[in-house]
């Protein structure tokens, strides 16, 4: 049977890793964190090495940098779970984020990699750090750096580890079995077909090559009538005026090899162009090979054209979360009636009849 990984190696490696995590979890008295870390590293490392050896046969090795960043991600994740100081846990989580964004980068998802660093490491984790500093008891004079009991002691470490690694073992084992039946749904050419929707990208490239030297650079909105891009044959058809075609022709015939290459590269001969310059028809330009649909193009197109409603809803969710956080974290101040009166007198507010007084105190209580 053609398995991705020998299940025995997978399960034994995961079990050793589980044992390591179990040892490293905070507990009373003896706390063999270093031994636990080494054990866990050994267990997960064994699985990754087995995967690498298997990938060597199948020519399915990831980029070599994977073997740097994946261990960093896993080890710092173990430290998040096992470190006794919440601040260090949060800092190790930032390391996990950085390592996994490097994994994104290795997979070719550049936009998400940098968005992850900016949003997660830059915003969410900083919020966590603030709250950790906000919600920690100040150390007393006698015991500086003492741990709170709830940080120093894990709750049911044995059962938690067994549960967690049962989940991982089942997940990874089942995926290893079922994965070979999943075939990729598309290929590279599907992605390059998106080029037909991105006239601006092609026009920018032509602009950079000074193809529109004398002509006005066409607006991308006009793509429907004036320009069409055939993504399969990587050509762009431009409707041109006789003068513009004549200009292009002149430059192609004279010195400008770059333009000659673009023009004659795909299907357009000088004779065609000459005919076009006479009649005022259209010219076909080859799209330069360096104009490619990038990760940013596909993600942006899919986000805006494919999921506009979800994008709007995400905005509303963020707004509501912000309002909710403000309402929840607001400090409720209880003010007694006498204090309100004293405060009102202090501020020079007229304390006359009681009904007027009520409105003043009502305003004060909600602040």
């Amino acid at each position, binding site marked *: 049977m053609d398995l991705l990984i020998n299940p025995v190696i997978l399960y034994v490696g995961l079990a050793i890793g589980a044992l390591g995590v179990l040892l490293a979890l905070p507990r009373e008295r003896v706390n063999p964190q270093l031994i636990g870390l080494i054990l866990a590293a050994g267990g997960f490392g064994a699985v990754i090495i087995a995967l690498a050896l298997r990938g060597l046969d199948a020519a399915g090795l990831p980029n070599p940098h994977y073997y740097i960043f994946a261990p960093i991600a896993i080890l710092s994740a173990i430290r998040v779970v096992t470190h006794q100081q919440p601040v260090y846990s949060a800092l190790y989580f930032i390391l996990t984020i950085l390592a996994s964004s490097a994994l994104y980068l290795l997979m070719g998802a550049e936009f998400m990699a940098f968005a992850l660093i900016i949003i997660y490491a830059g915003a969410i984790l900083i919020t966590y750090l603030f709250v950790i500093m906000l919600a920690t008891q100040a150390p007393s004079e006698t015991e500086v750096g003492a741990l709170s009991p709830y940080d120093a002691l894990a709750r049911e470490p044995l059962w938690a580890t067994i549960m967690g690694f049962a989940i991982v073992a089942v997940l990874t084992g089942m995926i290893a079995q079922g994965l070979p039946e999943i075939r990729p749904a598309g290929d590279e050419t599907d992605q390059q077909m998106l080029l037909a929707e991105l006239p601006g990208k092609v026009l920018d490239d032509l602009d950079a090559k000074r193809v529109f030297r004398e002509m006005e650079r066409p607006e991308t909105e006009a793509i429907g009538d004036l320009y069409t891009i055939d993504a399969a044959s990587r050509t762009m058809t431009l409707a041109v005026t006789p003068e513009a075609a004549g200009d292009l022709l002149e430059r192609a015939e004279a010195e400008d090899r770059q333009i000659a290459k673009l023009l004659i590269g795909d299907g357009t001969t000088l004779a065609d162009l000459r005919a076009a310059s006479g009649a005022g028809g259209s010219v076909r330009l080859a799209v330069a090979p360096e104009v490619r649909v990038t990760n940013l193009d596909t993600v942006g197109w899919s986000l805006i054209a494919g999921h506009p409603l979800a994008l709007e809803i995400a905005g509303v969710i963020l707004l509501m979360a912000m309002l909710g*956080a403000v309402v929840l974290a607001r400090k409720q101040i209880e003010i007694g009636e006498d204090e309100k009166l004293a405060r009102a007198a202090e501020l020079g507010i007229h304390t006359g009849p009681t009904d007027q007084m009520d409105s003043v105190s009502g305003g004060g209580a909600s602040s």
Partner: protein
Amino acid sequence: MTIASLAQDTIAAGMPLAELYHYLFVAGVLFGLGVIGFLARRNLIIMFLCTEMMFQAAGITLIAFSKYHFNPDGEVFVIFVLTIAAAEAALALALVVLLFRRKETLDASAWAMLKG
């Protein structure tokens, strides 16, 4: 080798099955560690941090499959996962601050009476 050329190689070649499994394994381990942390730690903030780690594992899986199938929807979904994670962090941390003000402790079992 520059970063751009690294990424270009990956895109042009597509992702073999064995390579996909490498990334899925890391995601699986991160998820499991998140589960363990959520169950075993008693500090409310660390518990929420561990849920974020599970989000992270889901993100790696989504991106890996998105690259395997040449379908950008997986990557776009990670954007929404990030959005929800941000909203969740804001609300959860506001709640944690509120709970801390009530009892002056972050111990989750201090609120054990909520189980009724």
